[in-house]
């Protein structure tokens, strides 16, 4: 056999590169065009960068916590340092990751688009809210680095107001400012949703994501000021020495707890409602079916927001609060589970007989359904005063809220990332690695937090740097799970960044979804739509021809 030398064929000339379509990313370049932007889409990306950084900072604290808890003795860090670790983990994750996460990134990006508007009502205030957030984050991280805070993210008095020798006031200032950012974002959304919907977009034609962003914004507006004043009073007491919560003068530390939890309980709904809104979008898109019970899901968002303001005392059952108030809070806490349950039933019913498309966002939606249900049910165990006395301040509580915050809210956040990434960046990520990361996250999460239910029920205290030796096996499992979870969270960082350069270019509607945001290019043009859309059909109509016949 002869081996012919192959002459390279002359390649046909490449077609001239097509002129690039103008979108919000390439309409202008340079640092100034980003730092002085008023485009809601760019501001969303700015938020994305900062909160991702804060997530990994909070995760670093979690890593140290789980490392310490591998052994029963306190041998990695000092007790005081451990107090700082769990405090700072909570502060960073709650105020600087979870609360902004979905609203500041996906709310900012998609609320105007989903209702057919060109921007939010107050674009400059939107940019201001980002700057306030960044200043708050820098301030807080500085306080943490300078020496940290050890009061718990709950800042209970009188320790926080009188005795703590850590950077309480500085951290409070950081948290106070982050609250301002939250208020401005919520304000922007409420005005936008009320006043800037496209022609034909009535309230009941809005996607459910908008309903949940609306409910979230109401909570942000009404609740945040109260924690602001509560923390401000603590800071004033620290700085001036006047005794507002000082028992020696007749002050009542429980009063601080009332003011603090009046916000901080609704705050957990700020963290979960947006994720629920995302799940409504994912469940419909990836089963190609309209949502089961649109109005029930829409109104249940409002119901959660309102009833959520009535239950704060369930954090205070053992604080010395009146037993009668405790009973009322307990009953109301059972009541607030109802709208959440309605949502879970309706999402499940939506999946039933749907045409399921097992893409990555869908995986996260399913994980949400399973894990949020577990978290929610364990919340009922805590809501009953009798059982709460046994498990308050144990790892049962920690497991419960991590199932909701991580198993629920962060799964929703990851689902949103994977769902809207093509729209936001114009790039697809590789399916296989995204699915693998999702699975790793799911396995890692459950291995980390399920043992903590058992630990808590058996009596392991939270916020303690050492524990009884019989708890070690479950703690080691939990820490092992945490390492797997960490890997799972690092993977998206890699493939998302990779996709920016090498990912397939995304079409306008890669998932075959309904919704105005899919009717425009990926990435969208600076003004979102070439012409203001006019809306005629309800949301989640996958077969418009059928819908037309029915009507």
């Amino acid at each position, binding site marked *: 056999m002869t081996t012919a030398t192959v002459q390279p064929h002359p390649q046909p000339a490449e077609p001239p590169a097509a002129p690039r379509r103008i979108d919000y990313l390439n309409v202008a370049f340079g640092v100034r065009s980003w730092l002085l932007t008023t485009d809601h889409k760019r501001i969303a990306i700015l938020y994305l960068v900062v909160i991702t950084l804060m997530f990994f900072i909070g995760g670093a604290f979690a890593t140290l916590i789980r490392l310490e808890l591998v052994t029963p003795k306190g041998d990695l860090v000092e007790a005081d340092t451990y107090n700082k670790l769990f405090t700072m983990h909570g502060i960073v994750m709650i105020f600087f990751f979870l609360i902004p996460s979905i609203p500041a990134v996906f709310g900012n990006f998609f609320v105007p688009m989903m209702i057919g508007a060109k921007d939010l009502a107050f674009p400059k205030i939107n940019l201001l809210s980002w700057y306030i957030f960044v200043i708050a984050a820098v301030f807080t991280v500085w306080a943490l680095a300078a020496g940290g805070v050890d009061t718990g993210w709950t800042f209970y008095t009188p320790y926080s107001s009188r005795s703590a020798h850590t950077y309480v006031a500085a951290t409070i200032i950081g948290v106070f400012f982050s609250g301002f950012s939250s208020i401005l974002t919520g304000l922007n959304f409420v005005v936008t949703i009320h006043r800037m919907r496209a022609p034909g977009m009535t309230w009941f034609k809005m996607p459910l994501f908008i309903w949940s962003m609306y409910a979230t914004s109401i909570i942000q507006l009404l609740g945040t000021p109260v924690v602001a004043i509560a923390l401000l009073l603590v800071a004033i007491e620290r700085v001036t020495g006047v005794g507002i919560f000082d028992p020696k003068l007749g002050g009542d530390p429980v009063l601080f707890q009332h*003011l603090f939890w009046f916000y901080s309980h609704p705050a957990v709904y700020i963290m979960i409602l947006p994720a629920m809104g995302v799940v409504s979008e994912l469940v419909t898109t990836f089963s190609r079916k309209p949502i089961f019970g649109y109005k029930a899901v829409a109104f249940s968002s409002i119901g959660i927001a309102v009833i959520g303001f009535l239950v704060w005392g369930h954090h205070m059952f053992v604080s010395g609060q*009146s037993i*009668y108030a405790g009973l009322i809070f307990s009953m109301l806490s059972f009541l607030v589970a109802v709208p959440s349950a309605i949502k879970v039933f309706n999402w499940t019913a939506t999946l039933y007989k749907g045409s399921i498309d097992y893409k990555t966002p869908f995986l996260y939606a399913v994980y949400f359904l399973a894990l949020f249900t577990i978290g929610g049910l364990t919340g009922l165990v805590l809501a009953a005063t009798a059982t709460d006395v046994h498990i308050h301040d144990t790892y049962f509580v920690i497991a419960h809220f991590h199932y909701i915050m991580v198993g629920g809210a962060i799964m929703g956040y990851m689902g949103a990332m994977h769902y809207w990434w093509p729209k936001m960046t114009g790039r697809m990520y590789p399916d296989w690695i995204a699915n693998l990361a999702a699975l790793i996250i799911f396995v890692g999460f459950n291995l980390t937090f399920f043992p903590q239910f058992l630990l808590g029920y058996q009596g392991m205290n939270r916020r303690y740097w050492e524990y009884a030796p019989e708890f070690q096996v479950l703690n080691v499992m939990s820490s092992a799970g945490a390492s797997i979870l960490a890997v799972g969270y690092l993977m998206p960082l890699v493939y998302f960044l990779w996709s920016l350069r090498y990912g397939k270019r995304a079409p306008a509607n890669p998932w075959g979804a309904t919704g105005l945001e899919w009717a425009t290019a990926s990435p969208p043009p600076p003004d979102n739509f070439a012409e203001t859309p006019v809306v005629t059909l309800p949301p989640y109509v996958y077969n418009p021809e059928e819908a037309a016949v029915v009507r």
Partner: protein
Amino acid sequence: MATQTHAHVTPTRTYLLIWAALIALTLLTVLLSSVPLGEWHTPVGLLIAVTKATLIVLFFMHAMGGSRLVWMVIATSILFLAIMYGITFSDYATRNLDASVRDPARPTAPAAPGR
């Protein structure tokens, strides 16, 4: 559907009348504070304050003739303030209700002034 900025301009006379009423109510509330009213001082003072606030909201802030949405915002903020105060207060009002049951020697919490 173009919307107009609200066309109704409140007459200056209305503003002056409202202002006069506010001044009168202020003088009234200060005067009443030196009159022995017993436990009615706080409710009366608050009632006058609420009246003044209502006048300011209705006329100076143009809530009278304002949109339904503005009314909803006002109502919601008052409602949630009432919730925050009411439920917190119910804790303090009921804290020692069962004290006499648990320990007959201890009296229930004094709701009336005496401490």
